[in-house]
């Protein structure tokens, strides 16, 4: 049996949970897929997930699971897994999963494959995951006793392709015992740094810069291209870390998620942390000196070369018309 551990926040299901259901259904073959929903009163999320073609939805409900802490989640899932005895446990590769799943797998001395983008099902399934900043794909097998743990990269599967059931799946309760004094982490309320003055998610066109821009004074070149195209200026994480552009212009897993009609990536290699934030763009243009940069795998149009020669030529060409 395969278990999907869904992620939810105050009853609202994380959209990646449906993507993990799709991955689990692909892995399962004839085996049943069950879902686990964990939190404080996560009934609404459980009810949404019961629409999936799963055998059952198991709810772990405790006030000690809100707010999220790795200690409480690990203790609760450890007990649920002992009861359900799955062969595989699939999770979305979210920041939260990254925080507790290695603890859980290590406590059970089991293997965990993180950031999985594809599955080869079978008696001994294997999993595909990016390595070397996405420049290579590794096919990996998990050794040792089950359950094996697998986290699925966000966006690797389509949530809407997850099979829905003809009737709602039964919702069970898994009773776990949690000790408040054993929870060592004391979280405060989540907050946003500053009001996002720039809403890149609404932009029709975006020009984004990455490490290839090399120096702060070259940002002006990208700015000129953005102005010529009527585009918003955005950046990958290292540019914002360096303070060359404000954090509010960052696109990627730790920044904004965008879906413009046109996305022009200048000197962006295409590390997955950036790509998850922009791969929904309709037309992607990549300009990069490295012909092997992963950005070219998702680009519609590519130019290999020196952006300091190509961008001025592009601005000149656009100004002609």
């Amino acid at each position, binding site marked *: 049996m395969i278990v999907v551990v869904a992620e939810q926040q105050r009853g609202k299901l994380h959209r990646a949970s449906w993507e993990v259901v799709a991955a689990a259904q692909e892995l399962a073959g004839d085996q049943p897929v069950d879902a686990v929903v964990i939190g404080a009163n996560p009934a609404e999320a459980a009810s949404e997930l019961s629409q999936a073609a799963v055998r059952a939805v198991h709810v772990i409900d405790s006030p000690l699971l809100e707010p999220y802490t790795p200690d409480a989640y690990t203790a609760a899932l450890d007990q649920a897994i002992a009861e359900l005895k799955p062969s595989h446990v699939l999770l979305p590769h979210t920041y939260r999963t990254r925080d507790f799943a290695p603890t859980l797998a290590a406590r059970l001395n089991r293997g965990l494959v993180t950031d999985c983008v594809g599955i080869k099902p079978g008696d001994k399934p294997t999993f595909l995951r990016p390595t*070397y900043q996405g*420049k290579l794909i590794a096919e990996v097998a998990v050794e040792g006793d089950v359950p094996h743990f697998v986290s699925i990269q966000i966006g690797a599967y389509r949530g809407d392709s997850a099979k829905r059931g003809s009737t709602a799946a039964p919702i069970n309760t898994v009773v776990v015992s949690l000790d408040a004094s054993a929870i060592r982490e*004391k979280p405060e309320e989540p907050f946003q740094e500053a009001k996002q003055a720039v809403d890149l998610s609404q932009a029709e066109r975006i020009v984004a810069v990455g490490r290839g821009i090399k120096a702060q004074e070259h940002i002006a070149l990208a700015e000129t291209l953005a102005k010529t195209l009527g585009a918003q200026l955005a950046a990958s994480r290292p540019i914002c870390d360096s303070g060359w552009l404000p954090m509010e212009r960052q696109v990627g897993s730790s920044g904004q998620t965008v879906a413009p009609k046109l996305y022009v990536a200048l000197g962006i290699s295409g590390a997955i942390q950036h790509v998850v934030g922009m791969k929904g763009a309709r037309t992607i243009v990549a300009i990069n000196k490295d012909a092997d940069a992963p950005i070219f795998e998702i680009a519609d149009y590519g130019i290999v070369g020196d952006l300091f020669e190509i961008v001025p030529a592009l601005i000149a060409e656009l100004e002609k018309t």
Partner: protein
Amino acid sequence: MRIAVCIKQVPTREWQPRIDGTRRGVREQDASFEMNEPDAYALEEALCLREKHGGEVVVCTAGPARASQVLREALARGADRAIHVEDERLSSVDAFVVAGALADAVREEKLDLVLTGLQSDDQGAAQTGVILAERLGLPHATIVMDVQVQESSVRVKRELEGGWFQWVQMPLPALLTIQSGINQLRYATLKGIMAAKKKEIRKVVLAAPAAAPRVRVVSLDVPRKTKQTQMLTGSPSEAAKGLVRKLKDEARVLA
């Protein structure tokens, strides 16, 4: 306070990995190596905490002989001493084995804080630090953007998804995985490089039998294209002209 920083030696970011004859590894002989970038931020954070609170910074790695170069680099930037769990097999094992080896090496160190980068630039499993916390019995926080050490606890700013953050407090000792960009990196000075030559790198032998890896690479491949990319070639002005035409006539994203 005594702070351990776990660092990994990885191929440089610019390196284009080529798959070796076994198709399970890369041609390391072609690579040059550097300190894993998030680990460099973890080291910097440890050095800043030592400046503020006093104490000692111990850098640790579990890797083959070549990895001692990043320990030397860390000592030159200001770390006090180093521990190297040295074994050639450590270049091709999973986070489960590396974390176990690091735990054995630092268990007796009476640490207040263990820092490491949130993930490695090569394998990118994002597991070593979290497993290490479990092996040492420490509370942990991942993807940390700020560290405030208090009397017997630490308050850290965790990065959540989509521009959200959260402060979390936990008792010391604790393990934190550090996000790139938390601070401004310092580089080694000539004085630091000279001083590093006199600092200790303690070699530790990997316990035999070492834990068996849980994740094994079956094969490596280059990613398959999910989209048909049209490459525009020629001189910069020819490529630019070709691109503008495509964006107007084919993609219809320009008027």
